[in-house]
């Protein structure tokens, strides 16, 4: 457990907050994974086959407002003082995020009409939450020191999902200038939980005019947590037992809640040196009608405590507590619902502008259907946005790619987003004969001490890439 703990801390506090921003992979020539972030990307090879389970491994987790060093550093303060300071310093715009992807199967081939097809299966886990500042303060400090303040439940907003994605896509040259592509996706959800659009306020006010010291208000409460696949896990006698794992596997492979999605993308040459790309990913949804449980809590209530009525001699005291609870339950309704719901996937948008330098005039054994010139290095600008419950979260990157040889290419990227302005990432892709290996990591400046990092991500993979003779 001691060895696992640093990893858990890493997952909780580090990693790209926008883990699906693959600025190191996007528009990176010569990698099949480029097609997953832009289905309209150019492909200069004729066949690829990922090493099952190892062709794309992606782990990222993060927190925009706090890192492990903030909490666990060694100084004159206690860890609890630092936790209190961290809660105080964060706000409801801060986010927590865990994202993980594992490519199970990845294949691609070019047909005689120059259409490049690709298909595969990948598993994804994505959890995202805004920091519910008011609720955190209420839970951590209580209401005693916050009388007359309003605690807003609308800050509670999170999504979590675990699903398999079956996909098939195609990309082709439309002209010397334009390459376009698409990818259709079938989502097979194993687990989903989401709570967005919550409403309600809690307030305790000193109330000299009221019959008691305070008056507590729960106003406009409407909290809804939707889940699918959750009750199976909760009700399982042994969550790691064979039956439970079999159920989960069944859901992962089209036996659970299903959905559909679409990726679209393009690559457009403004001139030989200037290339414009764009993509929209995961425009789709999952419909949940199996193993659904929704928990809703709604209503209005205010209380001054319990009033004693002092019955006369020989009379029974009323059941004050039961009556108070009944009144509470009548006004704040706790429901479990089982009807279906749909969850939109977090749609992502990519765009880039790429400028080629140092023309490469060497012949290459690669697919070159256009007359465009090739360049050994590229300067690029990349913009990424992902839709979250309260709107898009953006990131912008400057990238520099350099092809050292036909078998070894590297990229360095600087990324800025709403919270971090010092994210340097690096990527290597190397081919040994037809065997390709790539490794990408960002937030390198914090690699000397990951405890101080708010975000980082790691991606790697192995695959076969081939060209026809």
């Amino acid at each position, binding site marked *: 457990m001691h060895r696992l*703990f640093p990893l858990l801390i890493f997952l909780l506090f580090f990693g790209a907050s926008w883990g699906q921003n693959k600025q190191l992979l996007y528009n990176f020539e010569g990698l099949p994974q480029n097609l997953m972030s832009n289905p309209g990307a150019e492909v200069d090879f004729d066949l690829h086959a990922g090493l099952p389970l190892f062709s794309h491994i992606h782990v990222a987790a993060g927190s925009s407002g706090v890192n492990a060093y903030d909490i666990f550093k060694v100084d004159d303060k206690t860890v*609890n003082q630092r936790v209190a300071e961290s809660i105080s310093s964060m706000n409801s715009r801060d986010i927590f995020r865990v994202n993980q992807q594992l490519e199970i199967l990845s294949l691609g081939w070019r047909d005689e009409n120059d259409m490049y097809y690709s298909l595969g299966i990948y598993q994804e886990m994505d959890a995202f939450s805004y920091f519910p500042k008011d609720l955190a303060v209420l839970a*951590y400090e209580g209401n005693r020191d916050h009388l007359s303040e309003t605690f807003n439940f609308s800050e509670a907003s999170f999504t979590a999902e675990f699903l398999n994605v079956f996909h098939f896509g195609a990309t082709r040259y439309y002209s010397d200038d334009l390459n376009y592509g698409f990818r259709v996706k079938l989502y097979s959800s194993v687990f989903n939980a989401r709570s967005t659009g919550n409403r309600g306020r809690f307030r*305790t006010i000193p109330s000299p005019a009221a019959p008691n010291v*305070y008056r507590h208000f729960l106003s406009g409460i409407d909290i809804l947590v939707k889940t699918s696949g959750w009750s199976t896990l909760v009700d399982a006698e042994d969550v790691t037992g064979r039956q439970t794992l079999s159920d989960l596997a069944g859901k992962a492979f089209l036996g659970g809640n299903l959905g559909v999605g679409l990726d679209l993308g393009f690559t457009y040459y403004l001139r030989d040196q200037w290339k414009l790309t764009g993509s929209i990913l995961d425009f789709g949804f999952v419909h949940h009608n199996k193993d659904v449980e929704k928990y809703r809590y709604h209503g209005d209530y205010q209380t*001054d405590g319990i009033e*004693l009525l002092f019955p006369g001699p020989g009379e029974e005291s009323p059941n004050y507590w039961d009556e108070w609870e009944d009144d509470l339950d009548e006004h704040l309704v706790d429901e479990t619902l089982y009807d279906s719901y749909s969850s939109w996937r977090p749609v992502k948008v990519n765009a880039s502008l790429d400028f080629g330098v140092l023309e490469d005039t060497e012949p290459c054994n690669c697919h070159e259907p256009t007359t465009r010139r090739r360049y050994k290095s590229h300067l690029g600008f990349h913009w990424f946005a992902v839709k979250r419950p309260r709107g898009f979260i953006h990131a912008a990157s400057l990238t520099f790619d350099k092809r050292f040889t036909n078998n070894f290419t590297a990229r360095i990227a600087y990324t800025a987003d709403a919270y971090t302005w010092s994210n340097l990432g690096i990527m*290597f892709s190397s081919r040994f004969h037809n065997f390709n290996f790539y*490794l990408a990591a960002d937030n390198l400046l914090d*690699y000397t001490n990951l405890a101080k990092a708010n975000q980082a991500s790691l991606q790697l993979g192995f695959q076969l890439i081939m060209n026809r003779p």
Partner: protein
Amino acid sequence: MPAYKKIFTIALSALFLCASCFKEVDLDQASEIVIPPTAALDLIYFTLDLEDFHPLNTSGPKMAGDVVRLEFLDDDYIQNGLVKADLNFIYYNTFTNPIRSELIFLSENNREQYRISFTIPGGSPESPGVVNFTEVIQGEDLEDFKRAIKLRVELEMFSGTNEKGGELQLKSKAFLNLEF
């Protein structure tokens, strides 16, 4: 070895050794983290007049009494998390007679677990007798308190020359210091 391969090797090694770059922190502090909220909440309240007081017998003092279950005392967050309780009782007495207040916390089988006693001075509508009493319960007393599930309120109006009327009002609140 070509320069780029050296770079590749070094970078690869650095990435896989990144777990060792977790410095200047003491993760063992995680076991010391506690969540220490203090809840401020209303307890009971009432307003009594002379009709609510009844003599025990023809010559005895006038009494009033009631009992209320406080089910939250049995909840896990109290049983496992309560480290200190400040119970505050504010009486306003416009009877001219002083009144003895006994607040008795009882277990399920009505055994006394904790008692708070004090006398409310007599007053008048213009100038009520006021008691603002706070009982701080912690340590061993807290364990006794946590065994309670009911509160019995007993009020005894001291005999006096003037029992013609008045009101006795109680407001009460609790500060519950919790640690999780």
